[in-house]
C-alpha cells in the first residue's frame, strides 16, 4: 500500500464534503458577518434602564421646559416638555444639543489661576482664598466700589445673589450684558416708570408690526415666538416685517418693508406723527399720557413729516401711511422693537418710539397687545448688612450705566477705577462691540475673576477662573424673560452629577461671602445655594419644586398705565452708523449661531449654511446690484473704521443695495476646535457708540468698504 497523491486528494475532498454537509459553513458565514458589525471600535452606548426627568433649559432667554431621557441615570437626549407654558413641547436646535455642553472641549474642569500667561490648576480652597484675599484688601483700603461685576442676565436668584453680594460689599457697579430683557426694562422704565418690563402677546395679536424683530430668527423666547408665528395663518393675523434684509421672518411675513439700516426709530416717530395728526389714536388710553405728551405731539409733527421720514428711511410716504393706518385700525395690534434677537447694541430711542405706537393704539394690557408688567418679584433677599466701609462705597456714583460704557471708562483712564472684576455667565471679550478694546480694558484691571463653565474669550483674559456647573448639573430658578406675555418661573434641576470639579455659581458666591466675614457674611445667612433659593423663593418654593414651574402672571396686568413722553419729546438724536464709506455693514442674527454665551455647540455649528460659513471662510451678503466688480463666492477685503478682514462674497437679492450683512456670533477664539477659528467676529469691525439717554452702546451697524481681495 502506497500513500500517494490520490490519497491526499481523497482526504481533501472528503474533508470538504464532510464540512459542506455540516452546518459549519452556513453558521460561520452568518457569524462572520455579525462579527464584522461588532468590532470593538464601533461605538455602542451602554444599555440600561430608561428614565425621564424634567427641567428647564437655561441656554438662552427662551426658558423652555425640557424632558431629559436617561439611560441608567446618564442623560442621552433632550426633548421639549409638553404643556410647559412657554414652549408646550417645542424645543430648538440649541436645546436638543444641550448635552454637548456637558462634555464640551472648552469646559473648565477645575479652578485655574493665571501664572505667566498660562493657566495652572489649583484647588477650590486656594482659588476662593485668592478671591477673598483681594476683596479683603479692597475693604482694608476702604475702596469697595473698586469691585465691579458683569452678569449675563439680571433675572433669577443667581444674578440676584451677585447683586446682593455687590450691595453687601458696598459697590454700586453691578452691570448686566445688554440682552432684550434689559432693553425692555429700560424702555418700560423710561416710558412707564421704574421696576417694570414689557411683554408682547404675539400669540393673540391680529396685526404684528415688527421693526426688525427676528421672530423666527431667535428674538425673545425663540420657541414661543416660532409657535406664535406658526399659528398666525390659522387666526388670520398679519405680520409686517420692517428690516433692510429679507430674513427668514421677513420671508414668511405678509409684507416685508425694506428700510435703510438704523432708521427704524425715525420711521416709528414718523408713524406716531401721522397717527396723531390723523387722530388715529385711542383717546381713552391717552388719558394716562403724562409729562410731555403735548410737546411730543408737536415735535413729531414738526420734525418727522412723512416726506422727510421717507427720504431718511427709504420707505415711501404712501407706504408709511398705509402701514400706520392698517396698524392703528387693527383690532389687536402690537408693535415689536429689537432688531434681530433684540440683544446687544440696540437703541433706546427706537425701542421707545416703537412702543409708543403700542401706547397710541391703546392696546396695552389687553389681549393681543403689549403688556406693561411689574418686574418679577418672587425673590425676597434680606436687606444687606452694611458696615461703615460698605455704606461709603454703596453711596458712591456708579462708574457706568452699561458694560460697554464701563469698558470705555477703563479704557480712557490711566489707572483702572476697577480693581477687581467678577464676570458671571457673560463673555464681554467676545460679545461687546470692539472686543480688542474690551480685552485692553481687561488688561488694565489688576484682578479679574471669571465664573464660567467654559474657557471662553473672557475666561482666557481673566486671572482666576472658578468653574461652575452647566444648567444640566445644578439647580436654579429660571424666570421667563425676553418679551413673553406670561411671567413664568421654572426650576432647572440637576439632571446629572457634575461631570467635572465644578460648583453651582450660587454656592460660589455664598462661599466667598462667608469667608469675607463681617457684614457681608451676615448678609448671606444660608448654608448653601439650595437653602438660599428655598428661603428667598418663599411661598412659591413648594409649587416650584412640586410642579417644576409657577405661572406668576398669565393674564394681562390689571390697573391703569401711565406714559411719560419726557424722553422722546426731547427728540434724541438717531445715531448714524460711524464712518463715511460706501456701504453699511449690519449684523445678521442667525438662529443657528448664538451670539453671546454659551458659544455654539459643535452640533449647531454643523447646521450653519455654507453660504454663511464654509470651512473657516466667512461670507458676507451683498446685493448683486451694488457688488460692482465683486464675484459671487469670490474673496474680498471688508474694511470698516474699526478694522479690516478677508471674507467671501455671497450675492443675495434679498438685502438692500448698499448694505452688507454679516452673521453675528462666529469667529470664536476659545479653546474648542469645533467652534473656534471659524469665520469672523463682526463685533471686531464695529466701534461702540454710547447712546445719550440710555448710556448703552447703540452701534448696530457701521459704514464699510469692500474690495476684491
Amino acid at each position, binding site marked *: 500500500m502506497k500513500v500517494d497523491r490520490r490519497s491526499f486528494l481523497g482526504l481533501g475532498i472528503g*474533508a470538504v464534503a464532510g464540512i459542506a454537509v455540516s452546518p459549519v459553513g452556513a453558521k460561520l458565514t452568518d*457569524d462572520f458577518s455579525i462579527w464584522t458589525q*461588532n468590532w470593538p471600535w464601533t461605538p455602542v452606548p451602554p444599555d440600561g434602564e430608561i428614565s425621564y426627568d424634567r427641567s428647564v433649559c437655561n441656554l438662552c432667554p427662551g426658558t423652555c421646559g425640557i424632558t431629559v431621557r436617561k439611560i441608567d441615570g446618564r442623560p442621552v437626549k433632550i426633548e421639549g416638555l409638553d404643556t410647559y407654558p412657554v414652549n408646550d413641547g417645542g424645543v430648538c436646535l440649541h436645546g436638543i444639543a444641550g448635552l454637548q455642553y456637558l462634555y464640551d472641549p472648552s469646559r473648565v474642569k477645575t479652578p485655574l489661576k493665571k501664572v505667566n500667561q498660562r493657566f495652572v490648576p489649583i484647588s477650590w480652597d486656594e482659588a476662593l482664598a485668592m478671591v477673598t484675599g483681594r476683596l479683603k484688601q479692597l475693604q482694608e483700603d476702604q475702596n469697595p466700589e473698586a469691585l465691579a461685576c458683569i452678569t449675563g442676565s439680571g433675572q433669577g436668584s443667581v444674578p440676584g445673589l451677585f447683586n446682593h453680594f455687590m450691595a453687601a460689599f458696598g459697590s454700586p457697579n453691578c452691570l448686566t450684558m445688554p440682552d432684550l430683557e434689559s432693553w425692555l426694562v429700560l424702555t418700560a422704565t423710561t416710558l412707564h416708570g421704574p421696576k417694570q418690563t414689557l411683554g408682547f402677546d404675539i400669540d393673540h395679536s391680529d396685526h404684528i408690526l415688527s421693526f426688525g424683530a427676528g421672530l423666527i430668527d431667535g428674538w425673545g423666547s425663540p420657541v414661543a415666538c416660532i409657535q406664535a408665528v406658526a399659528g398666525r395663518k390659522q387666526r388670520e393675523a398679519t405680520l409686517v416685517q420692517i428690516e433692510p434684509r429679507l430674513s427668514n421672518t421677513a420671508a414668511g411675513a405678509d409684507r416685508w418693508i425694506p428700510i435703510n439700516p438704523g432708521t427704524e426709530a425715525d420711521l416709528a416717530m414718523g408713524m406716531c406723527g401721522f397717527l396723531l395728526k390723523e387722530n388715529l389714536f385711542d383717546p381713552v388710553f391717552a388719558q394716562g399720557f403724562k409729562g410731555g405728551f403735548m410737546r411730543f405731539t408737536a415735535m413729531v409733527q414738526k420734525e418727522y413729516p412723512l416726506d422727510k421720514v421717507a427720504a431718511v428711511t427709504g420707505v415711501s410716504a404712501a407706504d408709511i401711511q398705509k402701514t400706520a393706518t392698517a396698524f392703528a385700525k387693527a383690532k389687536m395690534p402690537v408693535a415689536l422693537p429689537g432688531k434681530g434677537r433684540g440683544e446687544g447694541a440696540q437703541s433706546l430711542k427706537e425701542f421707545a418710539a416703537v412702543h409708543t405706537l403700542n401706547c397710541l393704539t391703546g392696546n396695552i394690557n389687553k389681549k393681543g397687545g403689549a403688556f406693561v408688567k411689574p418686574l418679577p418679584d418672587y425673590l425676597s433677599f434680606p436687606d444687606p448688612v452694611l458696615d461703615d466701609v460698605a455704606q461709603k462705597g454703596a453711596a458712591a456714583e456708579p462708574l457706568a450705566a452699561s458694560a460697554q460704557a464701563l469698558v470705555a471708562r477703563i479704557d480712557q483712564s490711566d489707572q483702572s477705577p476697577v480693581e477687581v472684576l467678577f464676570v458671571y455667565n457673560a463673555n464681554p471679550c467676545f460679545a461687546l462691540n470692539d472686543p480688542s478694546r474690551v480685552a485692553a480694558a481687561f488688561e488694565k484691571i489688576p484682578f479679574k475673576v471669571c465664573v464660567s463653565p467654559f474657557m471662553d474669550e473672557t475666561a482666557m483674559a481673566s486671572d482666576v477662573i472658578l468653574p461652575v456647573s452647566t444648567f444640566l448639573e445644578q439647580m436654579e430658578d429660571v424666570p421667563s424673560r425676553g418679551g413673553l406675555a406670561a411671567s413664568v418661573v421654572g426650576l432647572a434641576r440637576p439632571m446629572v452629577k457634575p461631570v467635572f470639579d465644578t460648583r453651582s455659581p450660587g454656592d460660589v458666591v455664598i462661599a466667598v461671602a462667608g469667608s469675607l466675614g463681617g457684614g457681608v457674611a451676615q448678609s448671606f445667612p444660608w448654608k448653601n445655594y439650595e437653602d438660599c433659593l428655598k428661603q428667598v423663593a418663599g411661598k412659591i418654593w413648594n409649587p416650584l419644586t412640586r410642579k417644576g414651574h409657577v405661572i406668576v402672571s398669565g393674564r394681562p396686568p390689571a390697573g391703569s398705565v401711565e406714559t411719560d413722553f419726557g424722553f422722546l419729546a426731547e427728540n434724541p438724536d438717531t445715531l448714524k452708523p460711524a464712518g463715511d464709506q460706501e456701504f453699511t455693514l449690519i449684523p445678521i442674527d442667525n438662529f443657528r449661531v448664538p451670539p453671546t454665551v454659551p458659544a455654539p455647540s459643535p452640533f449647531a455649528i454643523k447646521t450653519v449654511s455654507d453660504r454663511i460659513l464654509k470651512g473657516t471662510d466667512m461670507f458676507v451678503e451683498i446685493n448683486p446690484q451694488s457688488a460692482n466688480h465683486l464675484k459671487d463666492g469670490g474673496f474680498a477685503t471688508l474694511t470698516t473704521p474699526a478694522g479690516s478682514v478677508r471674507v467671501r462674497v455671497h450675492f443675495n437679492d434679498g438685502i438692500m443695495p448698499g448694505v452688507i450683512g454679516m452673521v453675528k456670533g462666529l469667529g470664536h477664539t476659545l479653546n474648542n476646535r469645533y467652534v473656534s477659528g471659524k469665520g469672523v467676529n463682526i463685533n471686531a469691525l464695529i466701534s461702540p457708540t454710547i447712546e445719550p439717554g440710555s448710556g448703552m452702546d447703540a452701534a448696530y451697524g457701521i459704514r464699510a468698504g469692500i474690495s476684491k481681495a
Partner: protein
Amino acid sequence: MSEIENKTEHGSMDGATAGTAEDPKNDTGLGLGVIFFIVAFLICFLSGWLLFPKLLYSKHEQPFNFDHVLHVEETGDCESCHYLRDDGTFSGIPKLASCLDCHTDEPMGETVDEAVFAAEYVAKEKEIPWYVYARQPDCVYFSHAAHTEAAGMDCKTCHGPIDETRTSRPYEENRLTGYSRDIWGKNIWGIKKNPWDSMKMDDCAKCHVQETGHKGYCFQCHK
C-alpha cells in the same frame, strides 16, 4: 549489449507494465484515496455537527440559580417582575431594587442560591450581573408593548415556558459574535420546532408575514 541497447529492447515492455492502471494488483492508490476520503468526510462531518457547536459557544453559569416556578407561585405572573413602564418601555430583567421589594439581606429560604443572593448582592448593594438569554443586538429596536399589549401576544410565544423552569441553564455565548445562543437557536442547523427556539431576523419576518401579511420594513427594527 550496451546498457542503452538493453533499455531500448525492453523499453516498450517496461513502459507497458508501469503505465497500466488497469492492473488490479497494483491498484492501491485509488483504494487508499477512497478510504482517506471516507475517513476525512466522517471526521469533518461529525466535527461539524458535534464538535463545532461545542467550540463555537462558551458556557457561563449564572451568578446563582433562579427558580422561576417558585417566583411565579409567589408573585402570580410574569408582569410582577417583568413589567411595562408607564411610558411603554419594558423593564426587562429586574434591578436589585425590585428584588428588595420582597427580599431583605436575610435569606428568605434555605437554598445556597438565596444565601449567595443575600450575601453577595443585597448586603453589598450590587446589581446582579445576569446573563440575558434573549438579549437582541444593539442594532435591533424591539418594543415589547407593541407585541404584548397591541397584538395581545403571550410572553411564552417568544420566550418559551420559562416560568416552568426551576433552574437557570448555563448561558452560551457565541465566541465570534458575542450573542446569546438563544438567538440562533439550540439546533445548530437552525431547525426549530417551537416559535421560541430561535429569534433571528427571519423568525421575526416569518411571524410578521403570517400575522400582518408583510414582513415589515428595515427601519421598523433597525433605526
